[in-house]
């Protein structure tokens, strides 16, 4: 297990470095700089109106934007010497740098520190994580039982209706769903607030549900297909033939063997949820880090873009590794195949 984990770790680090490099090059290829006034009504324009060349040069120097690109990257990733000659450490030490847009605050402060007198859960990061967890809980908690129930009796009327319903749910884009939910529930029926303060659990239900619909339907479908597949297996017939209780058959024989495909599908589904989070947060003006991301990209807040990209990529990579390890633990065949050097 240890060499496996080590090679995984090496790969994770390589991917993260590559992600940082790609994003760094791309964002610097966007024309303009954080103080230019390309876009008519952005906050940058207001600064730009009164900013003369020497101020701009001074700001460039302070944020290190006057350095050559490769030096800027090493400064961000590894670190650099400050004015007084002391060394400060970069992203490798978890220092995500100062934000350009919100002058005077560091990227980690903005993302991880809650407002005065609140707990960590009220920070940008805390909000997003809670929304993702809430939605995953709905997706898994509804998806697996639904798939299991309809998979156990695949030819019943209710199972067929579920199957059609799930296909329909999968084809609804969550952007459209979220938008229609706002129009119908908030604007017409006034059931939810248009601009909630996100302190009561009721405010969370709609965005979490919108976020959960797609993964829930995916998980339910995979579970259904997987259960139907397993039900036809010989060992299930044997288990029934030797007179095991139906509950034992379902839990010990069917669910356990059906679990592996479910878990391998849950990984990509969760990763897609991170991407959907950026859209849903923007639709609902949710105070998580998705909104920070949009404004950072549009205003060229370089350190903020890098920080958020790294956090996002880390989350994706970690989810992928966890899925891989879990499926190894669940299925001895994968473990054996790897040990024998098979693909």
């Amino acid at each position, binding site marked *: 297990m240890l060499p496996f984990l080590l090679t995984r770790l090496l*790969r994770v680090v*390589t*991917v*993260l470095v*590559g*992600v940082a490099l*790609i*994003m760094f090059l*791309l*964002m610097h*290829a*966007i*024309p303009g700089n954080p103080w230019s006034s*390309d*876009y*008519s*009504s*952005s906050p940058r324009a207001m600064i730009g109106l009164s900013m003369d060349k020497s101020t701009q040069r001074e700001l460039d120097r302070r944020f290190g934007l006057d350095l050559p690109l490769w030096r800027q990257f090493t400064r961000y990733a590894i670190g650099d010497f400050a004015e007084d000659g002391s060394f400060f450490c970069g992203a490798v030490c978890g220092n995500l740098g100062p934000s350009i847009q919100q002058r005077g605050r560091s990227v980690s402060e903005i993302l991880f520190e809650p407002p005065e007198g609140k707990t960590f859960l009220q920070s940008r990061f805390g909000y997003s994580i809670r929304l993702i967890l809430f939605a995953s809980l709905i997706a898994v908690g509804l998806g697996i039982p639904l798939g299991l129930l309809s998979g156990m009796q695949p030819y019943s009327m209710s199972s067929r209706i579920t199957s*059609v319903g799930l*296909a*329909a749910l*999968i*084809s*609804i*884009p969550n*952007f*459209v769903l979220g*938008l*229609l939910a*706002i*129009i119908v529930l908030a*604007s*017409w029926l006034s059931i939810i607030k248009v601009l909630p303060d996100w302190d009561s659990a009721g405010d969370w239900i709609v965005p979490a549900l919108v976020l959960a619909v797609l993964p829930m339907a995916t998980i339910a479908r995979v579970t259904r297909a997987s259960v139907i597949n397993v039900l036809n297996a010989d060992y299930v017939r044997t288990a029934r033939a030797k007179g095991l209780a139906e509950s034992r058959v379902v839990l010990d024989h069917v669910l356990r063997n059906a679990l592996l495909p479910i878990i391998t599908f849950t990984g990509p589904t969760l*990763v897609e949820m*991170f*991407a959907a989070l*950026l*859209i849903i947060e*923007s*639709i609902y003006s949710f105070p998580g880090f998705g909104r920070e*991301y*949009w404004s950072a*990209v*549009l205003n060229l807040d370089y350190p903020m873009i890098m920080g958020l*990209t790294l956090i*996002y*990529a880390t989350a*994706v*990579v970690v989810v992928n590794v966890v899925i891989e390890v879990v499926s190894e633990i669940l299925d001895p065949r994968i473990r054996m195949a790897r040990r024998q050097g098979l*693909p």
Partner: protein
Amino acid sequence: MNALLPWKRILRRRAVWFSLLVMAVLGSVAVLAPWISPHDPYRQEIAQHGLPPSWVHETGRPGVAEYPLGTDRFGRDILSRLIYGTRTAFFLALAGVSLAALIGTVVGLITGYAGGRLDASAVLFMDMIQSLPGIMFAVIIVLILRTRLTPSWLHGMVTLVVGFAAVSWVSLARLIRINLLQIKSQLFVEAAISIGAAPRRIMLRHLLPNVSHVVLVWIINAIPAIILLEAVLGYIGVGVTGAVDGGEFTVVSWGGMFFSGRSALSSNPLMLITPSLCLLLMSMSFILLADALEGAYRQQ
């Protein structure tokens, strides 16, 4: 495997008929746009701005039959903009998905067939791309290209097409590569190699036909994705063309309707609802069709 074979089977399903019907309707709306739209989608009638839909009479300014869905704040007919938006959506889908499918197929075939170090580094690169948030990646590409191309109605579409293709080829390349791993070890490939067929011939004549069904299902699934991307970017304010925040969309598109509809949510919610419903129908028809096709291929 014959890519056309399961059509007969899936035509028995009602969902497929629904899909094909929706596609036919939207497709003919896109083609016939100049003949069926009641107004020029670009023409501004300032005197008629902000009209409600024609069936609303309670408000101070009643709707008129001339503008069935009302007008936006520049006095442009919403129905006509919706109809012309369908055209834009279909153009985007055609161009964007073909480009992405081309890159994905080529990369997938080459890496899957070659294997070895080339394959390993390609997979690493694809891992990196897929660890980036796809929508941000697309937005950044749009932002990079937007000011570099000469402004015309085409350039906004081109940036979006490139942005979409840059992100989405990866998933197709991956699918093809995984499928090739199994196909590659089969006897007919070995036979082709042993009679001295060139790698290009093996890839195009022997491997590609065996993954064509994967490509087809992927294409059908990708069509709603690019139209959705345009709509989301419109809603957030990164236009197909035009400036960020407050700029006006110069191409009539569903994304542009989302952009202007957002500020008209209380006065005329139809500006958001109609393109939403179009997106919904379009997305459902393509994804249900892809789903049915995939099921049919799996049964084969």
